[in-house]
C-alpha cells in the first residue's frame, strides 16, 4: 500500500493554560483535499500551524511519505514541500506582483544582482499554471481581492509544494470569486497536490472537500465524507456536539414593519463611480439586506450613510430631517453607526482592552458632575454588554487583540448598542467568525430589531441575509435592480443568485 503524503500521529500541543490538541491523528493522501472544521479554539489552526512549522508539537510524530520528520520552523516546512496561504493576503501593497512573489526568495545572478527577467518569467509561469492572467508589473494595491489571493497562492507555489494549506482564504470572497478559486484548487489536486483546507463556510467545504475532519475541543471527533446526502446540519452537529436548531425565528413581523415609522429615507442618492440613484426607505424595527457582487458599491453606500465618506447627489432624511454627514461623528449624533467589514483596522483599538473599546463612543454619558469619568459606571456598562452579547473574555480588562474574531465582532456591535443608535449598518456581519458565534450574532441582530432598532446588513453570503432580513435589495454596479421580500416565493438563494447573475451579464 502506498504511504500517505502526510501522516500525523498522536499530536499533543499545549499552550500556557490550555491544551490545544489532545492526541490527534491526521492523514492526507496525494491528490486529495481534506478540510479542517471546528469552532474557534477547537484545534484546527493549531494543527495547521504545526504542519507549517510555526511551532512544534509537545508530543507526537509526523511522517511525510512514510519518512519521520521534524518540522522545527517554517523554513524547514518549506524545504519539506509544505506551503501555507493565510487569510489576509500578506502582501506589500505598493510593490509589484513579481516583487511580492519573490520577496525574500529573490533570484540573483552570481548572488548579487537581481535577475528580474528570470523572476518575471517564473512568476508568469506560476500564474499561468494557476490559470490566471495578471500583469506581473502591476502594483498589488491595484489588484482585486481575488487576484491578491492568487498572488499569495503563487508565492506559496514557488517552492513547488506537495502539501498546501489554505487557511480561511475564502473569507473575503463572494460566490463567483470562490468558484474561480476552487477551479484552481481542483487543478492543483489533479496534479497530485495534497491540500488542507480550513474554513468556516460549510457549504463551500462540502463542495470542495474529499473528506472533512471535524475538530472539537482539541480532538478529532469524526471524519465526514461529502456525499449527496451530507448536510451542513450534520457537520455543525458534530462540531458543536449538539443537535442544532438552525431555524431562527426571524422577521415574522415582516409584513407589518413597513407600516411603522420611517427612520431613514434615501432619494436618488449617488456617488460618482460607486453608486447611483439609490432610493429606499427604512422603517423602525426592520432589517434590510443588501446583496451583490464585489464592486457593487454597497460598502461605499453604507459609509456615506454614517459620514465616513460623503455622497455627491441626492437627498438623505433621518427621521424626516434632511441631513448630509461630513464626518462619522455627525452620523453618530444623528443615530447612525457602521460596523465595517474590517474590524481590526476600523472598528477596534486592538491594543486597548474590552471595556475601553465598548465604551469609546459613549464617554459623554459616563461622566460625573465634575466632568470626570465614573470608572465604576464605565466598568458596569462594559460588563453589561459582555453578558448580554455572550462575549467570551476572561475579563473586561483583556486586550481585544487576544479575543477571537467572533468576540471581536461582538465588541464592535456592543459599542454601537451602548451608544443606543437607532440605525446600525453592518457590512459583512460574520466575516472570519466561527459557526457558533455566527448564530449568536444573528440572534443578536434580530433581537435588536425586535427592540425597535433598524438595521442595514450587507453580506456576500445570501444565506445569511435570508436568515435575518425582512427584505433584500439586490445591487449591481451601484444600482438597486431588485427587491425581494420575505415570505414571497423569490426569497431563496437560487432565485436571488439568478437575479444577480442575469443582471450582471446585461
Amino acid at each position: 500500500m502506498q504511504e500517505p503524503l502526510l501522516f500525523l500521529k498522536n499530536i499533543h500541543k499545549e499552550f500556557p493554560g490550555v491544551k490545544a490538541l489532545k492526541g490527534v491523528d491526521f492523514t492526507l493522501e496525494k491528490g486529495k483535499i481534506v478540510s479542517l472544521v471546528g469552532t474557534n479554539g477547537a484545534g484546527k489552526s493549531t494543527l495547521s500551524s504545526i504542519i507549517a512549522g510555526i511551532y512544534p508539537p509537545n508530543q507526537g510524530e509526523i511522517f511525510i511519505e512514510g519518512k519521520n520528520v521534524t518540522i522545527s520552523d517554517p523554513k524547514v516546512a518549506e524545504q519539506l514541500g509544505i506551503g501555507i496561504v493565510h487569510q489576509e493576503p500578506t502582501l506589500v501593497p505598493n510593490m509589484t506582483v513579481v516583487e511580492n512573489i519573490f520577496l525574500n526568495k529573490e533570484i540573483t545572478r552570481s548572488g548579487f544582482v537581481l535577475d528580474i527577467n528570470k523572476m518575471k518569467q517564473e512568476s508568469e509561469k506560476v500564474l499561468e499554471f494557476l490559470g490566471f492572467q495578471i500583469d506581473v508589473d502591476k502594483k498589488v494595491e491595484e489588484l482585486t481581492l481575488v487576484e491578491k489571493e492568487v498572488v499569495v497562492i503563487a508565492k506559496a507555489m514557488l517552492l513547488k509544494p506537495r502539501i498546501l494549506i489554505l487557511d480561511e482564504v475564502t473569507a473575503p470572497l463572494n460566490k463567483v470569486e470562490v468558484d474561480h478559486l476552487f477551479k484552481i484548487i481542483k487543478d492543483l489536486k489533479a496534479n497530485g497536490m495534497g491540500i488542507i483546507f480550513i474554513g468556516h463556510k460549510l457549504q463551500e467545504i462540502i463542495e470542495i472537500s474529499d473528506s472533512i475532519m471535524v475538530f472539537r475541543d482539541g480532538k478529532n471527533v469524526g471524519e465526514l465524507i461529502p456525499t449527496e446526502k451530507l448536510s451542513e446540519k450534520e457537520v455543525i452537529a458534530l462540531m458543536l456536539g449538539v443537535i442544532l436548531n438552525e431555524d431562527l425565528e426571524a422577521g415574522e413581523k415582516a409584513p407589518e414593519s413597513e407600516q411603522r415609522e420611517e427612520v431613514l429615507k434615501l432619494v436618488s442618492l449617488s456617488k460618482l463611480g460607486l453608486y447611483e440613484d439609490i432610493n429606499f426607505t427604512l422603517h423602525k424595527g426592520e432589517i434590510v439586506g443588501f446583496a451583490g457582487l464585489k464592486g457593487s458599491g454597497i460598502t461605499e453606500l453604507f459609509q456615506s450613510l454614517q459620514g465616513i465618506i460623503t455622497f455627491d447627489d441626492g437627498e438623505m432624511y433621518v427621521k424626516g430631517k434632511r441631513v448630509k454627514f461630513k464626518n462619522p461623528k455627525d452620523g453618530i449624533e444623528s443615530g447612525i453607526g457602521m460596523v465595517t467589514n474590517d474590524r481590526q483596522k476600523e472598528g477596534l483599538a486592538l491594543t486597548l482592552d474590552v471595556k475601553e473599546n465598548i465604551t469609546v463612543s459613549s464617554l459623554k454619558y459616563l461622566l460625573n458632575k465634575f466632568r470626570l469619568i465614573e470608572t465604576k459606571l464605565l466598568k458596569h456598562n462594559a460588563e453589561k454588554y459582555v453578558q448580554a452579547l455572550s462575549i467570551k473574555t476572561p475579563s473586561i480588562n483583556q486586550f481585544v487583540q487576544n479575543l477571537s474574531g467572533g468576540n471581536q465582532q461582538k465588541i464592535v456591535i456592543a459599542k454601537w448598542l451602548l451608544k443606543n443608535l437607532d440605525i446600525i449598518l453592518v457590512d459583512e456581519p460574520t466575516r472570519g467568525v466561527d459557526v457558533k458565534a455566527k448564530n449568536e450574532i444573528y440572534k443578536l441582530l434580530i433581537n435588536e430589531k425586535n427592540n425597535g432598532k433598524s438595521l442595514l446588513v450587507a453580506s456576500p453570503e445570501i444565506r445569511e441575509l435570508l436568515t435575518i432580513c425582512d427584505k433584500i435589495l439586490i445591487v449591481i454596479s451601484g444600482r438597486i435592480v431588485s427587491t425581494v421580500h420575505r415570505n414571497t416565493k423569490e426569497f431563496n438563494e437560487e432565485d436571488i443568485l439568478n437575479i444577480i447573475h442575469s443582471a450582471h451579464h446585461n
Partner: protein
Amino acid sequence: MEEMVIANETNKDNLRKAILKNHTFILFIILALVMIIGSIFVPSLVQKGNLLNVLRLASIVGLAAIGSTVVLLVGEIDLSIGSIMSLTLVTGGLMVGYGSVPALVVTCLTGIVLGIINGVFVTKLKINSLMVTLGTMSVFGGLANVATRGQSIFLYDSPFYLWLGRGYVAGIPVPVIIFLFVGIVLSLLLKFTKTGKEIYFTGANKRAAWISGINTNKIKVIAYAVSGLTAALAGPLLSSQTNRITPIQGVGFELSAIAVAVLGGTSLIGGKGTIIGTILGALTFQLLLNILTLSGVGTYMEQVLKGFLLIVIVVIYQVIDKPRK
C-alpha cells in the same frame, strides 16, 4: 530537543507578559540599579547636594518630556519643542521689564499658541508630523534668533526667574515641585477625562477612533498644545540655571525629551505610555548623565548617550511588544 524549545517559548511569553504588566515596577528597579551601581563607581553621586541637582535637572527635562509623551500617545511626534522653548523664552524674556509674572504668563501662552499652530498644520496639511515639526522647528528657532538678533538677555533684574530655576520650597527645588504638580495633574486628566481616553484611543487606532465618533483633529491639536505648554514652562527653569536667556536655549532639547518619554515606556507608534513612566524615565536619564559627568567622561557625551539610549530602548520595546504570531 522539542521539549526544550517549548519551555523556552513559554518562558519568553510569560516574561513578556510580566514586563508589560509590571512596567512601572521594572522602571523603578532600573532606576534603583542605576543609582546603586553608579554610586559604586562614583561615590559622589549620592551626596545630598548632587542628588538635589540631579532632581532639579531631571524635572526640567521631565517637564518637557511629559508634553512629548502626550503627543506620542496620540500617535504623532513633536520635534519642534526645543525651538518652542527658545522662542517662548525669548518672547517672555523681552517682557521681563513689565514684570516677571506677566512675562512667565506670556511665555506659557506663546507655548500654547505655537503648539496649536503645530497641531493645525499636522491635522490639516496631511503631511506626517515628523516633517511638519521639523519645519516648525526651523521656523520657530529662526524667529527666536530674529527677535533677539542673536544676543542673550540677562536675568539679573528678575529674582523671580532666578528663584524659579534655583530656588527651594521646604528644601525641595522649585522645578521638582512644578514637575510633579504638572505630572500629577496631567496623569489624572489622561486617566479620568473623556479627552484623556480619546487621546489613548486615537493613538491606538486613529481610523477606528474617527469612525467611533472621536474628533481626532481636535485631540491632536490639544496634544500639541500641551506639548508646547510644557516646553514653554521648562524654558525659564532651564535658563535660570545659567542666569541668561539665549535664543538657542532649546537646541537639541527635543531629543532629550523624546528619549526620556521613550525610556519611560511611551511607544513611538502611539496609544501606549504613562506619565509616571516618563517621570521615572526622567530621573533615570538624568542620573545616567550625571554619572557620566562625575566620572569625568565629559558633558559632550550627553548627545551620544541620548542617541544610544533611544536606539537601545526602542529595540528592547520592539522585542517585548511584538504580538504573538
